């Protein structure tokens, strides 16, 4: 059998591998786009689609992303944008949770929604979107709400979990599962012109303390709704946190919260000092 690395090298222009060569490799070797991408990156070749990831992300980093698995819990306002960005970034496997179908009031902000998708599953829309924009990425659709029961199995193997939920009790349950599994959790929440992002690492109690005053119901979003730009902004910061954690670069929002106010256009960093010994 012809060596795939040799084929890819001969098809590359310098160290860049164009899309048509990837398609040829899929057909010639009977393997998936994901396999071709791994083979290319392992051989030091960068799929041309990632050229503009350079030099923020090296070929080696791109291979790390390709081998990564990230769970996105919630495919609504935040989740839709997070999935889009992780897929374009080249995160190899995305596990997406959502029990819902699209409704008309989602259309103002949810990236994956459109009139044609009304009444249809959000996670299936996510899978089709990802297959369309980056066939080398596998999206595993979970048409169910996250629960501690399904979470332990479905979050297994994820290097990072993204909180794109709209329910505070579910978020707190997710937080516990991530702590048990020892997985970092990137949290985002939005309401109207406002948003927040923080990242909780194993051993931290950031979220349970942030929401310690919650008793029942929803937050300010219940009255404020969510316009189009707030989820896009908060989701972008969440995606960047995921990328940094996967690559082990930069400084995550650990033990601090980014508090975003788009109305006043102020971004404030709230640091969480450890509690004083009593």
């Amino acid at each position: 059998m012809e060596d795939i690395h040799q084929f890819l090298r001969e098809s590359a222009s310098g160290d860049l591998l164009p899309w048509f060569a990837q398609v040829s490799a899929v057909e010639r070797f009977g393997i998936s786009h994901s396999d071709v991408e791994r083979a290319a990156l392992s051989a030091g070749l960068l799929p041309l689609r990632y050229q503009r990831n350079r030099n923020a992300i090296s070929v080696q980093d791109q291979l790390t992303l390709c081998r990564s698995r990230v769970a996105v819990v919630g495919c609504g306002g935040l989740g839709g944008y997070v999935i889009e960005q992780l897929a374009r970034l080249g995160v190899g496997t995305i596990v997406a949770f959502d029990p819902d179908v699209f409704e008309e009031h989602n259309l103002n902000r949810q990236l994956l929604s459109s009139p044609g998708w009304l009444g249809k599953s959000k996670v299936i829309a996510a899978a089709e979107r990802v297959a369309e924009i980056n066939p080398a990425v596998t999206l595993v659709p979970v048409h169910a709400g996250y629960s501690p029961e399904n979470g332990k199995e479905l979050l297994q193997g994820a290097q990072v979990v993204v909180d794109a939920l709209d329910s505070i009790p579910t978020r707190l349950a997710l937080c516990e599962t991530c702590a048990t599994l020892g997985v970092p959790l990137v949290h985002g929440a939005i309401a109207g012109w406002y948003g927040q992002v923080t990242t909780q690492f194993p051993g931290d109690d950031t979220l349970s303390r942030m929401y310690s005053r919650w008793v029942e119901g929803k937050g300010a979003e219940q009255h404020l709704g969510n316009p189009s730009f707030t989820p896009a902004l908060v989701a972008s910061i969440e995606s960047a946190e995921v990328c940094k954690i996967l690559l082990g670069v930069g400084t995550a929002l650990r033990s601090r919260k980014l508090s975003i106010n788009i109305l006043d256009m102020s971004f404030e960093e709230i640091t969480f000092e450890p509690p004083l010994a009593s």
Partner: protein
Amino acid sequence: MKITVKLFATFRAGRFAVQMQDCAPGTRIADVITALEIPESEIGMIMLNNRHADPDHQLEEGANLSLFPLLGGG
């Protein structure tokens, strides 16, 4: 005694972003919240000098108090 109160998100509407306040010794966080006419049920997070705090916590000279509404949407 002087304290600094910082309000976030919706709490700023009709109030302020940051304000220096003069308050009597023994003033608790709950007293400041009541004076601002913010229902305590709407308070999502209270930070006192970068640490989480409860409403019954007593304030000291130079305290930095930040009040946040609950945000939970996705």
